[in-house]
């Protein structure tokens, strides 16, 4: 039984801390409103909530039903704009009630746990409360020590448990702080078209741009039967994981097989990857403009593979006018992998289904192509017709938030 259920007039709530947004000056209202609407969309199937900003925090109460607040907190922790979340309980500011609630709260936290060090930290905003914050902390500490002599001992510096008590108009207790992913609310920074390959890097790049407030759309070039249905399913799963952070994502799949075959026939082998990427960029840009996106996003990192040298990037960059955001360009692979693990895309990214880059890879690609090389390599193909044909073969699917798949 939850602590709040054992008392009348004790309610569960979430205290949500917002970081960067509070610095936004005159635009702050718009950022907060967007954040709250993003939060609502993330949890509206769990119940009805009141979500209110005050005292530079966001306060979330359940209005009806009895939603699992831990689950609400878990879901909200992946909403960009949130720095951290504390599940808390709220009750009338009264010393007698406070003592009884604290005893139950501690019993709940300590159930099944071993020995723990602890302390209280009290913040008294309502100065009419009869005890000072120091007195509240030391009294409550003494009460818990007496009640749980086997389990608890006091430690002031970095204890296992810190019970926070805040006495305002109402009184609040919490002990847990769940870190969020910070950043800016998705929707504040326009729309970006993410080129997804199924590897480790591109989902991380999408995550990073969404964390700066971009709405994501994703494009994948499918070359069945060279690549399998499983490879496509894997990319879709990556989009699904990203949607936990970025919200709904329009996922565009280009049936690229015929184009790939034509390129393979007509383009010199050592330039195949470069030309393929130039074609992909053009297709992505055409789609991006149609979809009102303001930038392309890739997971490219300088020097990682032959097609990501400065020269190779230049030859692909130059075929499009939209800016290309490459948030990983200067990152070390290990850091990218660490981020992929943190956001939960790594395990899916490393599933061993080939993508078109590995099937059609030449044994000795040109690592330092010149613009002249690239243009000459395209001499035998009708680029415009190819891009046009690719855009005819795009199917789009909206991928919505999901929370059921393993974290």
């Amino acid at each position: 039984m939850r602590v709040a259920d054992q008392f009348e007039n004790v309610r569960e709530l979430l205290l949500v801390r917002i970081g960067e947004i509070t610095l936004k000056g005159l635009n702050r209202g718009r950022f907060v409103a967007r954040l709250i609407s993003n939060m609502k969309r993330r949890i509206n199937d769990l119940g009805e909530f009141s979500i209110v900003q005050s005292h530079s925090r966001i306060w979330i109460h359940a209005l009806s039903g009895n939603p699992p607040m831990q689950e609400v907190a878990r879901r909200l922790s992946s909403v960009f704009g949130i720095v951290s979340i504390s599940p808390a309980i709220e009750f009338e500011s009264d010393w007698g009630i406070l003592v009884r609630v604290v005893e139950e709260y501690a019993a709940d936290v300590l159930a099944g746990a071993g020995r723990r060090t602890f302390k209280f930290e009290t913040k008294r905003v309502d100065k009419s409360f009869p005890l000072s914050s120091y007195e509240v902390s030391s009294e409550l500490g003494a009460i818990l020590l007496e009640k749980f002599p086997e389990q608890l001992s006091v430690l002031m510096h970095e204890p296992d448990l810190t019970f926070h008590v805040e006495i305002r108009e109402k009184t609040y207790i919490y002990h847990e702080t769940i870190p969020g992913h910070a950043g800016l609310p998705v929707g504040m920074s326009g729309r970006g078209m993410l080129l997804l390959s199924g590897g480790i890097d591109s989902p991380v790049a999408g995550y990073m741009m969404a964390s700066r407030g971009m709405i994501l759309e994703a494009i994948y070039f499918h070359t069945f039967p060279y690549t399998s249905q499983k490879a496509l399913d894997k990319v879709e799963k990556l989009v699904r994981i990203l949607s936990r952070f970025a919200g709904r994502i329009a996922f565009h799949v280009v049936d690229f097989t015929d184009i790939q075959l034509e390129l393979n026939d007509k383009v010199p082998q050592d330039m195949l990857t470069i030309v393929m990427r130039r074609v992909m960029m053009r297709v992505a840009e055409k789609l991006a403009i149609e979809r009102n996106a303001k930038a392309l996003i890739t997971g490219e990192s300088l020097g990682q593979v032959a097609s990501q040298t400065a020269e190779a990037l230049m030859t692909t960059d130059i075929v499009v006018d939209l800016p290309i955001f490459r948030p990983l360009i200067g990152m070390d692979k290990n850091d990218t992998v660490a981020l992929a693990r943190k956001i939960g895309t790594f395990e899916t990214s490393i599933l061993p289904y080939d993508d078109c880059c590995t099937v059609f890879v030449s044994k000795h690609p040109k690592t330092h192509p010149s613009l002249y090389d690239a243009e000459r390599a395209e001499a035998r193909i009708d680029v415009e017709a190819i891009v046009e044909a690719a855009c005819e073969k795009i199917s789009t699917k909206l991928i919505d938030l999901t929370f059921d798949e393993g974290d």
Partner: protein
Amino acid sequence: MLPEVLAVYVGLLGESGNNPASTHAGGLRALSHLDDAKRMISRCLDCSVDEIVFTSGGTESINLALLGSAAAIGRRPKRALATTGEHDAVIETMKALSEKYDFDVDFVAVTHEGVVDRNALRSALEEAPCGIASFIVVSNETGAINDVSTLTSLVRQYSPEAIIHGDIVQVCGKMPFSFRRSGLDLASLSGHKFGAPKGTGVLLKRKNSPLSPIVYGGGQQKNLRSGTENVPGAYALALALQSHVMRMDEQREHVASLRSLFLRSIDALRIPRVVISPDGASPYVLSIAFPGIRGETLLNALSEENIYISTGSACGSKRAGENHVLSAMGHDKETILSAVRISFAPTQSTDDVEHLVRRIAELYDRYAMHGKRRGGARG
């Protein structure tokens, strides 16, 4: 699953209280089904009813055989031999013997034909005696057949006390097999490979071969495999095996004719190919490469029309171009990448085979990255 087996299996699943350890009527009926199953299996595989342990499948049988023998190794040398042509279940269990049970493990080479290289085996045995040896009798990758009694004799010349295990998963119901005359101490088989339900298997264990259990509990099956017996599964396994053994010659002939029809048709359509399976291999599986097109590409395209083949690099868990059996036979990465494994079954018809070959020709013309059919559409 064979329809006649499915009917009996489902009927048994519905019977209440079928725990063969119980003394009530239901329990006794279950016990008698279990005994019947053992009798059928003993006739099919020429073993004694006392030599049968029911398991959950080939992998469990192999684990019990190898880990259980290692735990009961006694004074025998802590050295185990297997071949590079083994199934992953044996390879990985052998690695566990080396890493967790302190065994020296050696993998003996196979020849280009995919069978155990006897000279390599002889020199491995001359190097030091072994306590455990394990051989795949018919390769799941290529169908290559090892002459198992020759191998067991060779091992016993050098290591008379060795415990010898055979992986007979691809043998049962497909070719004659006599456990008695094989010289094996242990043999593992899997039910679902011959039309029994998944999750059923058998380990054959010669009476005097030492074996410790790897699953502890109520002491069922002479304490070798605790846990209530899966009576419907065991009975279905026995029934399926018997049904295949009774029709073995005619089925084998049919399957062999399908396989040769396949190869003739491939050649008639001039699809470049490298047959990896050796002459005299089991007709039930054909390993073949079509240079110019990846096995993966064929598999993807065919699976869309519900034709299921496998690639040289089986299982999604592996990287393209990796296949320990084909590499051990000396094939290069390009051949392995373009290799597929085609299973022929008694239920298939000549029409099925001809259709498959036509589709392979069409897919080759459309998707081969290099190499052309002589006289083919793109030629």
